[in-house]
């Protein structure tokens, strides 16, 4: 192990990791640029590099991008990745109150802890955990998506309109129906457009619903109403809120576990962590109005996915998400086919790579803490400058996703439609959650039904499924109870 550590702590390795991570933070922070895209595009370039250095560069990008998505989410309410949507729910209100510096600090510390914890688990228990994760089949994937969708209730009781949040979530799932039905190969509502055969990509939706709408709203404001009084005090360094450790620990654990499971993990992990942390919080009523606990849970959750997703990727060749899949391409191109050989024959490359992820987490911690006071000032940039710059990135980013102009139109359509929905009080967070998790739930459900040969029993049969049902009920019952109480005891009208 010592010689592996020595490989990481050479000047060139450290520089590579630092470059990768810093670039990752920037990529994660820009609307439309995703870690998947960055890693995918860089894989061919690492081909000519020293294999270990190439992998370190990509690992740094992965870690950095996962954290980077939270910066614009907090400052501008424009999450750079879907996994940062939950962060925006708490982070942006904090910025508006002038606590942007603190929100950024909580986010970077939580990301660091979640990321480091998950890499530690990867280093110590990868083969063992990967075997366990295999028991998780399509039926359990369906339940995981349900757990994520339970987050809609959580978003709702903040905006205090359960019905509208549910409608928005449903709308998201309905939009997700468009495209090829994977089970029969038939086309659903594509209207003969080849662009719709794959369905509606959630990235243009994310950019339209958040980045673009935020810019439209900024442009429509008479006065840039941000409380700047406390911003100048950030130099004094606000300490981390008390009791935040509990939420970071919760998010780190949840994120790592969900990351290990196959499927698009980070978004689900962030929302489930956020939802769980709200359940255990003593200050539930502050959620949705700028509670750092929510940021802590969501960010430790999505960064926990980084190490987690690499567990099945490296040991079994089953990438935990799309970034891990792109990263796997980089391993294969170097002749390192995932499996036991990575830890024996190629140990001199694999272990330094895993160890480099610790360094990458450290790098973004330093970057984040060091730049937080300056980054916080981004929120002060006048709309006349902000709106065109972010707008241009939104258009470019949408195009760059698939080199398709159609995605730009899609993004604009989501911005216009979303703006109307937002003004009518429908939750866009619920909509995007439905859009992302709808297909995962559908795939898990239909595959589960096929494997169960038509019997729904498969969804409650396994021990894992039973535990998941308990968690789903625990997530759903308290908010429903309080909703019922409010409506029937007439405390307030929640609709």
């Amino acid at each position, binding site marked *: 192990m010592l010689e592996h550590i020595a490989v990481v702590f050479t000047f060139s390795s450290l520089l590579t990791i630092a470059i990768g991570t810093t670039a990752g933070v920037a990529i994660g922070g820009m609307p439309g640029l995703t870690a998947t*895209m960055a*890693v*995918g*595009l860089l*894989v*061919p370039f690492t*081909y*000519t590099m020293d294999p270990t250095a190439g992998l370190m560069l990509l690992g740094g990008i992965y870690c950095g991008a996962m954290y980077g998505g939270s910066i614009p989410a907090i400052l501008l309410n424009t999450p750079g990745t879907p996994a940062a949507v939950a962060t925006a729910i708490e982070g942006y209100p904090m910025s508006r109150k002038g606590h942007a510096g603190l929100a950024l600090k909580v986010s970077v510390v939580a990301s660091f802890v979640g990321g480091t914890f998950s890499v530690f688990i990867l280093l110590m228990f990868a083969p063992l955990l990967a075997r366990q994760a*295999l*028991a*998780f*089949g*399509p039926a359990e994937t369906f339940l995981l998506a349900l757990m994520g969708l339970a987050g809609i209730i959580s978003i709702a009781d903040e905006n205090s309109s359960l019905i509208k949040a549910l409608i928005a979530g449903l709308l998201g799932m309905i939009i997700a129906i468009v495209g*090829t039905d*994977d*089970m*029969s*190969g*038939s086309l659903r509502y594509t209207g003969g457009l*080849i*662009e719709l*055969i*794959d369905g509606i990509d959630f990235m243009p939706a994310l950019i339209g619903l958040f980045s673009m709408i935020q810019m439209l709203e900024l442009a429509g404001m008479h006065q840039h109403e941000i409380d700047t009084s406390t911003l100048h005090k950030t130099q004094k360094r606000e300490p981390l809120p008390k009791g935040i450790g509990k939420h970071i620990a919760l998010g780190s654990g949840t994120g790592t576990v969900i990351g290990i499971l*196959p499927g698009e993990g980070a978004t689900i992990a962030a929302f489930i962590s956020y939802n769980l942390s709200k359940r255990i919080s003593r200050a539930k009523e502050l959620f949705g109005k700028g509670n750092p606990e929510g940021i802590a849970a969501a960010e430790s959750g999505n960064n926990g996915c980084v190490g987690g997703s690499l567990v*099945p990727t490296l040991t*079994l*060749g*089953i*990438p935990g998400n799309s970034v891990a*899949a*792109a990263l796997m*391409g*980089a391993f*294969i*191109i*170097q*002749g390192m*086919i*995932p*499996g*036991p*050989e990575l830890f024996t024959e190629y140990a001199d490359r694999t272990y330094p790579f895993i160890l480099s992820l610790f360094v990458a987490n450290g790098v973004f911690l330093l970057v984040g803490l060091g730049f937080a006071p300056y980054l916080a000032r981004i929120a002060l940039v006048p709309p006349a400058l902000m709106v065109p710059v972010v707008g241009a990135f939104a258009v470019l980013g949408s195009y760059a996703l*698939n*080199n*398709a102009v159609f995605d730009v139109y899609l993004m604009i359509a989501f911005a216009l439609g979303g703006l109307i929905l937002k003004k009518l009080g429908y939750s866009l967070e619920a909509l995007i959650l439905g859009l992302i998790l709808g297909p995962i739930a559908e*795939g898990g459900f239909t*595959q589960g039904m*096929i*494997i169960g*040969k038509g019997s729904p029993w498969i969804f409650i049969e396994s021990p894992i499924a039973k535990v998941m049902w308990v968690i789903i009920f625990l997530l759903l019952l308290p908010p429903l109870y309080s909703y019922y109480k409010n409506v029937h005891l007439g405390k307030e009208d929640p609709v």
Partner: protein
Amino acid sequence: MFKKSILAGIVVALGLTTTAAIAEYPSKPVTIIVPSKAGGSTDRTARLFTEVAEKNYDGFEFIIKNIPGSGGQKGFEAIARATPDGHTIGLVFTPQLVAHIVSGRAKYTLDSFHIMGNTAQDPAIVVVPKDSPIKSMADLAAAAKANALTVAVNGIGSDDFLAAKSFESATGVTFNLLPTKGSTEQKAAILGGHVDAAFMNLSQMIKQHQAGDARIIALLTEERDEHLPDMPTAKEQGYEVFMRATRGFVAPAGIDEAIQTRLDTMLAEVMATDEFQEKAKTGSIFLLPMTGPDYLAYLKDLMAQTKAVYDKAPW
């Protein structure tokens, strides 16, 4: 008057391009359209080609343009629509290229392309979980007759799907087919024992087979494969089921003949270099060089087979 001069200009321009075309070719970087995501196996094949070609051919520069989606259809359409001036070529993969034509979804036909030649292949395989009682194709057929087996294939209309359908019609069994999104889900289903069998590609499962995490029971190619020489084919086991994925280069139809010949020759020469073969081996790309005419014949044949399956059970 004005119209006339424009017309004259166009005529002159056209004349110039045909006569001077080869002399000035390439006048700009050649774009290679890759109908899948960056980092995947098709993408790696294209980048490997560009790396070796740029080194050996002065004046040639390549740009890879990834157009992923719809089982390659978006990218195939883009190649077919590209200006045939030799500055855009592309990669295609089978059986999706012909499956889209057969299912009536494609706007292109095989005539939309000039087929330059095949580069790589990936044999189809049948794989079962490591502790499965099924050890051969005969076991698979027997088990499928007794009980509907759940069998994972990578989406409807894919090579896996076609292979499974062709096994069904060869043996008269009916599988409980589980379509997945991508080979990753298939892998997880096999390694986790959630399905009874899967039709996949060799490169996706060879390491898992060698590590004992899954068991390949047959190759669906005419001959055995050098990467797994002990593995018998389905044909050896008495089942005439054949399927493989291929990845070849094509150009939009109608390119100036001299330019097209230059591109075709370059492809054949690059594939023959030691460097290309060496790097393909490291990157787990299984080479299967085929000339343009051979590959075209292969595609036509494959299209007829696919049509037979489609007519029986359309998707």
